[in-house]
């Protein structure tokens, strides 16, 4: 198949195929359309769209998953969800994760990116090192930290023992379980945000920075008035990912605390799993799913409208 895209005089014989080709082109378009599009649409509709619709439907029933749903209870499941203390805690925890991501993780990532965006000995190695936690599976990270936090054998315990104190069982107390999880969240994801910022910094127009420097601006002033404003798009993107990621958090919670003790460290997804899936309360779990869906979609739409103008 010739790939030359240049201008070549099209001989007479080729024109005829071109005329025939137009109809042929429409036929081939149709063929491509009918062959290429349906698989994606079918898979997507079957496994993504329909389930959400079904979640809305199932949420009106009290059903344990066997046979067909028969006990219609209307909006009662939603009432149960909103009344339950566990869900309120889970929602608050999700908000907490978002806040921590924005106030601690983001600045940390930014600071590291500013330092590591320059090329110097070991900068690439350090970048890779900081990105590594992001690549590891959440489940493995959770297990590693459940070891570190272990009151008897953990690293934390050893440090305390070295000072002659008894280690706190972080994961076993309702007060500190969430703190423990937040630390792991920051540990795991700061590298990702750092890489985003590095990419943005490296693509940034150096002239603006130089110009400011030449004008006598100090390092901090350059940072505050030139660099960060230029990074706004990336910062917004980073926030978007932090929020979306937090709403989905599950794999980290399970190995660390399973949402406990006493539902204190649940996220909405782990709450869904513990109270919906594990107990096979399909209606109840679906209601939680629908609520989560509404939250995600609302956030995505409002965020895109207010802050971003991408697609």
């Amino acid at each position, binding site marked *: 198949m010739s790939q030359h895209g240049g201008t070549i005089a099209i001989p007479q014989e080729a024109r005829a195929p071109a005329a025939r080709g137009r109809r042929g082109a429409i036929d081939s378009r149709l063929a491509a359309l009918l062959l290429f599009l349906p698989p994606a649409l079918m898979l997507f509709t079957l496994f993504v769209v329909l389930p959400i619709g079904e979640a809305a439907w199932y949420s009106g029933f009290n059903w344990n998953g*066997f046979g067909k749903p028969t006990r219609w209870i209307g909006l009662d499941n939603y009432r149960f969800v909103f009344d339950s203390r566990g869900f309120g805690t889970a929602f608050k925890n999700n908000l907490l994760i978002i806040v921590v991501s924005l106030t601690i993780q983001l600045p940390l990532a930014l600071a590291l990116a500013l330092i590591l965006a320059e090329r110097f000995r070991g900068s690439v190695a350090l970048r890779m090192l900081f990105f590594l936690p992001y690549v590891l599976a959440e489940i493995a990270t959770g297990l590693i930290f459940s070891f570190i936090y272990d009151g008897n054998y953990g690293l934390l315990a050893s440090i305390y023992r070295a000072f002659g104190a008894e280690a706190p*069982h972080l994961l076993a107390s309702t007060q500190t379980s969430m703190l423990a999880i937040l630390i792991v969240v920051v540990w795991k994801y700061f590298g990702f945000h750092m890489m985003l910022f590095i990419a943005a910094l490296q693509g940034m127009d150096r002239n603006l920075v130089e110009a400011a420097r030449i004008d006598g601006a100090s390092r901090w002033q350059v940072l505050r008035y030139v660099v960060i404003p230029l990074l706004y798009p990336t910062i917004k993107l980073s926030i978007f990912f932090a929020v979306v990621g937090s709403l989905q958090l599950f794999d980290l919670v399970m190995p660390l*605390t399973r949402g406990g*003790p006493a539902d204190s460290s649940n996220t909405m997804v782990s709450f869904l799993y513990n109270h919906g899936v594990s107990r096979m309360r399909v209606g109840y779990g679906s209601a939680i799913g629908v609520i989560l869906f509404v939250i995600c979609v609302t956030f995505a739409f409002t965020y895109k409208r207010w802050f971003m103008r991408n697609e």
Partner: protein
Amino acid sequence: MGYLRTLALGAAGLLLAAGSATAQTTVKWLHIEQNPTQVKIWEEVARKFEAQNTGVKVEMQFLENEAYKAKLPTILQSRDRPHILYSWAGGVLKAQIEADVLEDMTAGVGAYKDNLSAGAVAAFTVGGKLYGLPYNVSQVGFMYNKDLFAKAGVDGSKVKSWDDLLDAVKKLKAAGVTPIAVGGGDKWPLHFYWTHLAVRLGGKPAFEAALKGQDGGFEGEVFQKSGELMKQLVDLEPFQTGFLGFKNQQALGFFGDGKAAMNLAISHHSATQRALAADKKGIAEDKLGWIDFPMPAGGKGQLTDTLGGVNGWLVTKGAPKEAVAFLKFFVSDEVQRALAAQNFIIPTFKGSEAALSAAFMQNVAKNIAASNYHQNFYDQDLGPSVGRVVNDAVAEIAGGSMTPKQAAKAIQDAFKQGN
């Protein structure tokens, strides 16, 4: 591109291979037993059965206790589900029967069931039909470390009332010994305290009334008092540090290591603690004592009432008939005696309990035989969803995040909602 295609074909081929049928009958047996010595005996039984029944293979699969309870609902929905399942009977069994996932084995077992204790068989009979074969009964009570008690100057045989227990806890703490090890992370070890108090305070009448919704149901006086008494204990801080993060096996290991004086355990956990201790030896027979759950002042329950379990094996729908045959083989005099001799179970086969070697296990067997009211664990008896709420609520009392009143209300609310 070419190799992508090959990969896809290879993957497809794999799927076909995985799905191909095997010539012999496989009986899939899912269990939760941690103790390797006991598992080994079971394996020998399985091999013996295979030898006597050519063409049959018995495949054992293990899931840890909590993981088992959490996954069971989804496991039961799968086509590929195990044929033999572990069960605590109660409301969970009833829910499973209603969901039509269990095999009615009345015919398959026939008159064989007359060899087993009537009470145990009754636990697995619903609507006149037999759904499971019981193999073990158990009682909940305090197992204690005689040496540690002696160190604190506590006489285990004198702990009879609830106040005696609180006293003992105070004395142990004064002697620098952790009074009680508990697996708070799993929650159900904590619910023993609350439920046993309820059994002591109200006995059978209170429970049956609550089931009918009388006297305020589970919000009633008996159950609120249970929470309050439990809170008395919790306020003394008798548990090991970080108890809310300990799984039951870890707590048993802690006890087996001699780090705590007591553990409110299911009787056969006396054997489990041995396997889970760091030195794999745990607390020896002669150093292990047993205290029946104490009676609080004003308790209307009988001293002979017991809280405990009846454990058995269920067969899922569509299982090969060899599954029931294997169960009959497993719950037989010979096997029961072998297990009892090592104090792994309190047998259900009539007469096998003579093989029990440990004094306190024999004691427990007598207790259960004498009991008129053997209450099954609430978290199993009340059904899958309500049961878990009981666990959640009691764990919150222990953690201090719920008052006894709130806990009782939460349970009553869940009970009204149903499963």
